[in-house]
């Protein structure tokens, strides 16, 4: 299957390869200088301030000495320590040192100057290369920018598959230009080509969905199609099967629960606000984990937000009852509240009835991106919601989002990106053989595709943005990252090996975790806390642990 992913295509933007119409640009060299990052180490994936290099080196030395002098302690260090954000080398080394609790060794590199009686750093590092021109530094940092990633994973492909992709992209370009008659003729050609391509798996399958979505856009118009064409009930069923068929949602739930559990450590009254309850799939595991917590479980309140049920059933309450039953069976004091709202932006904080004495966790699994559309120039929904979340002063906010750039203003860019993203996702689904999970999961994904491709304005809710953009937005809205550590990483990896096919990969990305198929991340999990002061420009590296 040919899977491509796109930031931009020829013709839509001019200029150098690293700019993009909608994403924020990487920090210009002047900012990099301001932040004083060593460019060569940045190219190797490490963020170290040049002014801190010497200090980091000294600490590395101390760790090495410790390693040699007490190897037993060191291997203890290796197995017990939880590591955070390895890119921040200074913090990583410091955290290891503090775990090791070394008595301060007399740094041999400091000498007293007999004349001035001041300490002088003995420059043991060579200065012979200081004349080397530092011209390469800025280049490496540019490469680290993920804002305009064009990630492609391909496999063996036959000619007609490649032609199909080419035609899809050309058709999308016609649509962008408004050349409907040409686009329509491409549609016809593609339908024909589809008959010659295997549509059971690979490019043929996903191409079919994209052809349908393009048809819909052309013939029904962008305001026409309803958001997902399904009732809330249907959507929940599809979501449940998507949960079963592949590990993405399980990973999301698992990682968020880990972080929430840690954040709630030591707190006796806790309140989880779930932005999209669905069937409450995430919560049994958290309830059980809280039940087993040393010192006993807290009082747990869960507020689940979901769409209203049309037929008078209170489906939220039904889910709540089931969760309460489970909580009772494991002796966790539990209270549930349902908040029915068709859109997240219709929820007001007072509806959540947060008690000032309780510790709050806000849990958003693939919901924040729905707030990115804005019809008016007033406060966009995302800003409003982030602001009231902040006002709740949550202990933690867990955010899981699709790792894709599906909210670019240009249609062709969006289309191309989606083609790659969903091709990869479909490829990963091939590994699932359980029916009807697989078939229904595919319909779930297909509805996302349809929304990304054929809808606009308020109808287009699947406005996925990559982690890098969420980082910028959340930092700017007054949140700071709580880094997910190596223990969460390890457990996620282990679960994957146990329950899923080969090919799924968990990766650490600057304190966040992503799950992807081979080398393409598809879903990103992160955790946040509100800062009380104005947001800092450079994320504070020193707080590793939540809570």
């Amino acid at each position, binding site marked *: 299957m040919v899977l491509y992913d796109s930031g931009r295509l020829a013709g839509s933007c001019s200029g150098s390869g690293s700019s993009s119409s909608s994403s924020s640009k990487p920090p210009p060299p002047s900012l990099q200088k301001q932040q004083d990052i060593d460019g060569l180490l940045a190219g190797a994936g490490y963020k170290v301030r040049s002014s801190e290099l010497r200090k980091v080196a000294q600490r590395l030395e101390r760790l090495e000495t410790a390693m040699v002098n007490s190897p037993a302690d060191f291997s203890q260090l290796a197995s017990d320590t939880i590591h955070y954000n390895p890119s921040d080398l200074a913090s990583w080394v410091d955290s290891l040192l503090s775990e090791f609790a070394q008595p301060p060794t007399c740094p041999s590199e400091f000498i007293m100057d007999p004349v001035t009686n001041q300490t002088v750093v003995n420059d043991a590092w060579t200065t012979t290369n200081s004349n080397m021109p530092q011209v390469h530094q800025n280049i490496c940092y540019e490469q680290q920018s993920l804002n305009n990633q064009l990630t492609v994973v391909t496999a063996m492909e036959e000619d007609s598959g490649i032609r199909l992709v080419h035609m899809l992209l050309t058709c999308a370009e016609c649509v962008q230009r408004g050349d409907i008659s040409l686009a329509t003729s491409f549609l016809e050609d593609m339908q024909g080509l589809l008959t010659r391509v295997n549509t059971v798996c690979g490019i043929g399958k996903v191409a079919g969905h994209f052809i349908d979505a393009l048809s819909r856009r052309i013939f029904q118009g962008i305001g026409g199609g309803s958001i997902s064409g399904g009732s809330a009930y249907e959507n929940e069923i599809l979501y449940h099967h998507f949960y079963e068929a592949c590990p993405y949602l399980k990973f999301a739930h698992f990682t968020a629960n880990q972080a929430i559990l840690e954040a709630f450590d030591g707190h006796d009254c806790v309140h989880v606000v779930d932005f999209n309850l669905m069937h409450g799939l995430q919560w049994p595991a958290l309830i059980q984990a809280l039940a087993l917590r040393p010192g006993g479980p807290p009082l747990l309140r869960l507020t689940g937000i979901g769409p209203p049920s049309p037929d008078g059933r209170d489906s939220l309450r039904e889910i709540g009852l089931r969760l309460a039953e489970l909580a009772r069976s494991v002796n966790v004091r539990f209270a549930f509240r349902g908040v029915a709202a068709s859109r997240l932006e219709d929820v007001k904080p007072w509806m959540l009835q947060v008690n000032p004495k309780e510790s709050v966790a806000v849990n958003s699994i693939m919901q924040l991106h729905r707030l990115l559309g804005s019809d008016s120039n007033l406060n966009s929904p995302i800003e409003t919601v982030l602001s009231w979340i902040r006002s709740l002063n949550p202990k933690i906010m867990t955010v899981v989002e699709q790792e894709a750039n599906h909210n670019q203003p240009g249609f062709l860019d969006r289309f191309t990106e989606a083609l790659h993203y969903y091709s990869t996702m479909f490829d990963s689904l091939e590994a699932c053989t359980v029916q009807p999970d697989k078939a229904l999961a595919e319909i779930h994904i297909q509805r996302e595709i349809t929304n990304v491709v054929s809808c606009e304005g308020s109808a287009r809710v699947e406005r996925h943005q990559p982690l890098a953009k969420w980082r910028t937005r959340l930092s700017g809205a007054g949140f700071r990252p709580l880094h997910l550590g190596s223990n969460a990483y390890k457990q996620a990896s282990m679960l994957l090996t146990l329950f899923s096919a080969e090919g799924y990969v968990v990766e*650490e990305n600057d304190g966040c975790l992503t799950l992807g198929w081979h080398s393409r991340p598809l879903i990103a999990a992160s955790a946040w806390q509100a800062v009380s002061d104005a947001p800092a420009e450079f994320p504070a590296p020193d707080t590793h642990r939540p809570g």
Partner: protein
Amino acid sequence: MARSNEVNLNECKMVVPLNTWVLISNFKLAYNLLRRPDGTFNRHLAEFLDRKVPANANPVDGVFSFDVLIDRATSLLCRIYRPAMAEEPQPNVAELEKPVAAEVVPVIIFFHGGSFAHSSANSAIYDTLCRRLVGLCKAVVVSVNYRRAPENRYPCAYDDGWTALKWVNSRPWLQSQKDSKVHIYLAGDSSGGNIVHHVALRAIESGIDVLGNILLNPMFGGQERTESEQRLDGKYFVTLRDRDWYWRAYLPEGEDRDHHACNPFGPNGRSLEGIKFPKSLVVVAGFDLIQDWQLAYVDGLKKAGQEVKLLYMEQATIGFYLLPNNNHFHTVMDEISKFVGSGC
């Protein structure tokens, strides 16, 4: 007074720039955390700590990359790096596998280092290195994400290398226009250098032409303790103990370091006399404790009548080619570009 396994930090501080020292010491520290005395490896922590970068089909500094799954059964991925064509600043994404345009385009199959246990094709340090090679040699670079030890012992890494070689050789879009053949070079550092040798060996009677081997600080060894191993043990980031650990992790259980994988010109090695073996460029760092084995490798090639050029970089430590902040780096890059440029 330094014991052989006591860390003597002062000497290596003098010979590398500060940021290189930090980088390599960081690896040394992290790797110590990952190797367990019982021979097992903390793979989860290794993957967590490794700094990786995604492929990028948008050109950056004239190079774009994409990943290809070349063998589903073993999840064997390769990352392909190509020069962006001047006339087309953005690649048309349906044409990533567009035929190479020139009369002669070298294709370098690259095997990353890591002593058979560490790193990946998408590790940041190797992504950077491969991108440099594209510009330097005007080549397409195929970086192989081979299976690693201790989970996958000999000969898995060689098998994967061989799979990649066959795959590259059979891509019509990689054929040079001059003769409709793929012009293949093998390159690698540390364990990757070792893999280069063994894949080239396997290619010998296959009909696949390998035009040249590039071995950067290749990983070889043997049962004997050589003079350089004793003299340099623990002095420049690397200890004999860790070398021994990696060989125990890669070689079949029960085998010693005179196994031919480790010691190709040793008692169990294969003679290359009269064999059509590719010309070799071997780079040896003067502060690498295994240099005696690397020099013995060069000797072995010479004695078998094979064409080999040795680049001995006296003041270089391991990993000098990872950052472009020293003279050895530039010297070696020049030689590589000449090696690939000639006799294509």
